[in-house]
């Protein structure tokens, strides 16, 4: 899941990025509204964390612009303003959620999960394909009652594959949702991680779940 953080207070942006990355999200950070708008028009994100007071284009304006343009990416607004009228203004401009600063990081994580869940149209906190299950809260991955230990990146990749179980996901899709803006398209990092995952998920099972679709991408199915 790839998240764009638009926040001009460098240190706040940094810890949000770090915390989200450690949860397995791919995170891009920009410091002003204009750059944020540019990234959003050229990349696909699963969620946006948007500060209100931003240089060049402020958060409210950016939010309205995105919604007018038809961009439906879930948005959480972050701001030091916590008056009811500010919240109403923020939500009415098209934001999905509103979190006043200072916030508890766990709450931000939970709210991000809610938005991603809503985006999928699902409410469960567990992804399940056949005997493979992934807990979105505890990050526990279990196949046939056996707990599988994954790195953060492997977890993020598996989560993305499982969310799209039964459908082919291209390398570009993977790079856009699992890796951040600094991903180098010319490396074979994705193939390497797919291999890691195969070793952990499929080895020792007759039923191989991760398939390569030649010339297209990968597929996770029963």
């Amino acid at each position, binding site marked *: 899941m790839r998240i764009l953080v638009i926040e*001009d*207070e460098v*240190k*706040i942006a940094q*810890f*949000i990025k*770090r*915390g989200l990355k*450690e949860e397995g999200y791919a995170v891009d950070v920009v410091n002003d509204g204009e750059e944020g708008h540019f990234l959003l028009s050229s990349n696909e994100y699963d969620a946006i964390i948007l500060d209100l*007071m*931003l*240089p*060049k*284009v*402020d958060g409210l304006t950016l939010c309205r612009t995105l919604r007018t343009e038809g961009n439906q990416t879930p948005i959480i607004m972050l701001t*030091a*303003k916590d008056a009811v009228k500010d919240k109403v203004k923020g939500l009415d401009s098209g934001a999905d959620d509103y979190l006043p*600063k*200072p*916030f*508890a*990081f*766990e709450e931000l994580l939970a709210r991000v999960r809610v938005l991603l869940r809503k985006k999928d149209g699902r409410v469960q906190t567990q992804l399940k394909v056949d005997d493979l299950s992934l807990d979105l809260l505890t990050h526990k991955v279990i196949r046939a009652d056996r707990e599988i230990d994954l790195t953060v990146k492997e977890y993020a990749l598996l989560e993305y594959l499982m969310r799209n179980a039964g459908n082919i996901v291209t390398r570009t899709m993977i790079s856009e949702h699992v890796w951040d803006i600094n991903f180098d398209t010319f490396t074979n990092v994705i193939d390497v991680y797919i291999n890691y995952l195969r070793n952990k998920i499929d080895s020792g099972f007759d039923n191989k779940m991760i398939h390569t679709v030649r010339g297209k991408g990968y597929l996770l199915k029963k």
Partner: protein
Amino acid sequence: MLLQSIRFKIVLWHMFILSLALFVFGMVLYHNLSLKISNDTDDILRSRAKGIEQSINTYWEAERMNIADGDSKVHFTKEDNINFIKIAKRWVGEKINDPDLINIIVRIFDAHGSPIASSRNIPMEHLNSHIFYDVKKGADHFENAYIYVNEKSSLFRIFTTPVMEYKRLSYVVQVASPLVQLHTVLRNLRFSLLFLLPLTAVLTGLSGIFLVQLTLRPVNQMIETIHQITAENLKLRLTMPGTKDEIESLAKTFNEMITRLDESFTSQRQFMEDISHELKTPLSVLKGELEVTLKRIRSPQEYESALHSNLEEVNRLAGIVENLLTLARFDAKTTTLQAAPLDLNLLIKDVVEAIQVLAIQKEVTIQFNRAHTLDIIADKNQIKRLILNILDNAIKYTPSGGKISIDLSQQKDSANIDIVDTGIGMPESELPYIFDRFYRVDKSRSSIGFGLGLSISQSIAMAHGGKISARANLPKGTVFTISLPIKSKTTNGS
């Protein structure tokens, strides 16, 4: 409430003053009228008596001729003259219906006070001795007394006058006018005064209540509205009564006051919002960084860097709180200035040296054009802080390669410090506000905020009796002018 209302008080005073005025007016009127009426009566009686005397005398002269049979030498006195008594009786009998004598009783007495004739059915009585006493001496006499007329006693004004002949009392004329009518007039007047005046006062009072109520109705409406005005509801305004009087002017003044209060509350609220925003940013960083760091076991290096970053934020918070306190002390005028002679050349040189590190980091050159010896009386630490704040601000907003120059000069009895930068500059329209607390040139940009530095600088300048102003340095940059009196009038204590 009712008894203390303006309405009640006005009406009560109004009635009291009116009653008093009417009472005095009534008393004077009554007194003057009764005096005038009795004087008039007396004048009439006097002139009637004179007329009667002349008429009787003429009558007598004519009759005397007849009695004397044309002999003018025959000499009669009227005194004790049987003929005169007859004449007088006849005169009275003839003249009784004279229009002039209607309502007037005429009595004639002889020189001894014995009755000769009377015009009405009055008991023939001897002239009262005390009257006769006066008359005998040749003096007129007035008195009020009861007389039986037609066997009915009533009060009369009685005038008695002697008629002299050859310096001897020859006879006495007494005329009397009934006082009944006069008394009726006065009684009517008394009745009017005693009954109509209080009635008038009461009626005036009632209409006064009505009028005052009419006048004060806008006031009651104002009170209603004012009741609804609270600190949260300062947008409410009184409706102008449109009466163009003191009440309208009161409403106008009140509205103006509410507007001022509203502005002051709004700026206060804005200030609170700004403070909370300013405090929340470092708090958010602290909280977020700590939470993220504590989510798992970290390496010592990671902990160290997190702690360093936290320390920075704590320092930032401490700085904001310190600045707020400084401003609060200036506002409350509890800052004591340690005023002493101060060499401005030396001080600015020190400040420039201290801030040089920042300037070199940003590749900004600072040039100081010193003045001839320029000493002022001021608080060294505060002035240092003032100049430091302005310089720090200038460096912050001057891009690399820029230049800042400081010019110190003396103008009459004030020292002027011009700090000129080639920074990003500010729109002319924003310049008057940059000394406001937490003022931001660009509302959406959190990076261009002056925080409290400029506000504190201004407070310091003002505490020394000086001022600080900013103007655009065309084509680019800003000029800050700090002007300090050489002999500082320290408004903040010592």
